[in-house]
């Protein structure tokens, strides 16, 4: 099973190749001789490919190193600081919740969506009491409303429910 680092460098190599090919198609040099729109994408693509390949070779040569960092290793390294066993799945749950929040913004409005995010994270992910979770969510929404909407006048989307919420 290739290490996380190897996969990352392989992905970056692919990105670099894509950038280089597209950069060439955008024109490297203008008819006037000036730098064209494709020069920077192609140049950065070439650099990305070159450096990614160098790093891939280094990882393949080194024995057992370059596996990237696993959650368990990081937690072990900072054992004194950790009061909760690593729950890597929490990161993925929070990512999922942020995606759902972004989808809800157009439906419920930005502030209500963020309020729900806070309540679910505190109550479900962090396993605090639901009363506290709702309280933190409400306070967050009120403070953000006062600062962004009232003080700074930033227009916040109200979603399909308009001014109801």
């Amino acid at each position: 099973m290739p290490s996380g680092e190897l996969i990352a460098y392989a992905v970056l190599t692919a990105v670099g190749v894509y950038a280089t090919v597209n950069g060439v198609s955008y024109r490297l040099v203008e008819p006037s001789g000036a730098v064209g729109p494709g020069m920077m994408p192609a140049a950065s693509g070439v650099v990305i490919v070159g450096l990614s390949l160098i790093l891939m070779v280094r990882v393949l040569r080194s024995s057992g190193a370059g596996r990237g960092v696993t959650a368990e290793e990081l937690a072990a390294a900072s054992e004194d600081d950790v009061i909760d066993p690593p729950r890597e799945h929490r990161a993925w749950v929070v990512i999922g919740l942020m995606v759902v929040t972004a989808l809800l913004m157009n439906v419920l409005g930005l502030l209500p969506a963020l309020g729900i995010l806070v309540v679910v994270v505190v109550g479900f992910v962090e396993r605090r009491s639901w009363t506290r979770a709702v309280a933190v969510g409400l306070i967050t929404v009120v403070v953000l409303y006062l600062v962004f909407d009232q003080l700074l006048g930033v227009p916040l989307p109200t979603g399909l429910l308009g001014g109801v919420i």
Partner: protein
Amino acid sequence: MWDNLSLGFSTALTPENLLLCFIGVLAGTIIGLLPGLGATTGVAVLLPLTFTLDPVSALIMLAGIYYGAQYGGTITSVLISTPGEPNSIMTTLDGYQMARRGRAGPALAIAAVGSFFAAIVSLILLALVAPPLAQIALKFGPPEQLALVVLGFVIISTVSGDSQIKGLLMTACGVLLATVGIDSATGTTRFTFGQLDLLSGISLIAVVVGLFALGEVLAQLSIGEAKPIRTRLREMLLSKEDLRRSRAPIMRGTGVGFAFGALPGGGSTLASFIAYGLEKRVSPNRAEFGKGAIEGVAAPESANNAAANANFIPTLVLGIPGGATTAVLLGAFTLYGITPGPLLFEQQPTLVWGLLASFFIGNVILLVLNLPMAPVFAQLLRLPYGYLYPLILCSSLLGAFAEENAIFDVWVAIAFGIVGYFIFRVGLPVAPLVIGMVLGALFEKTLVQTSSMGSGSFGILLDRPIALGILAVAALLLVVPAVLARRRRLRVAHTSLVSSESKKDTHV
């Protein structure tokens, strides 16, 4: 000069102007605290509130917002690893590590002290050299700006943690990201995948918020909830050792910040990057950089503030904005019927010197407000992380939205939060990616302009002594450390060979 300064102070020290300066600094600090909002947004949003004021008072308040926001951005850089502005990115590298070690108070305090010192020195330099320095800045065209960005890339290559290659790789990725959108020179759309929202490019704020704030939260979640940071009161205060170590970095950062901030077109953005990179090269404690070195906070913070003041040189004297925020301030000048330019110092001395004197007063207010508040801000880290990070998520997503009022930027922030998480897991450095985005945009613009000036040839650089000088410095910075390192390795190898041979002789 003293007559001008006393005129300025007599203008700035009226009760009304003092109050407006205080309000501006406080509002700026709060705005800078919010991820995604920065000085530019703050000045733009609060500009209408100043229409009823007279021009001097209005500009004093807006300027207060400007540098107040710089410090607000520093607070979030240190406490939650989220730079409020691109200028605060470098502070994150060591400031956040200091906070993780229970030293958030000294980090914030040295930022306040360094910023104050830089503001005072740059104000004096402004008063002394603004008009002649502006004439030199006039000679800065695209070739000189190109050379400056190349110098920035060279110096930044040292800001890559332990692996220069990884840092350069991430810088190249940042440069590539900066090409997304419409190419301003030719109108070609690049890497937009048919998305209208990508025509203006990827939002830098959304990327910064995603990588630094969201990425850091996801990384922390994956390694388990860290204990709230408990520190004793004396650990939250600056020690004599902290001040001793910070003295030289503050002076160097001030010099770098003023020099680069005086240049129009992005010099101030480079200032903090270059100050950090330079400090990392010359500091006797360079091994600690990236792990919580106080020099890594003192230098870029001083550079920021010096550059923020020096930005007013091209703005006031030439009418050319030094950066995004001064561009908005320039708009304010126009709204009040004031024409910046070489004659401004002669025709409107009350306004100019009143504004400059208010910088001094505003920075005193900043220091008085924030130095005692530094340990208080640091107390935020005592909050259990389970309550703290949802707030970080909210303010980050809202901040990403607020820049352009676009939900698309929220998606960008989330995407880069995931990218930041993977970057952390794989062990690649994050800061060079953002630096690459900032420098890449500048680099392409100046590259295209320079090549146009030379009709496709870069030989024009040979006719520009300032540009050649800067490129020579960049070349030296690349070559000299490599040569010195090689000589050191040879010397060590020779010494160990001699020592092993003398041991053999002894045995015989």
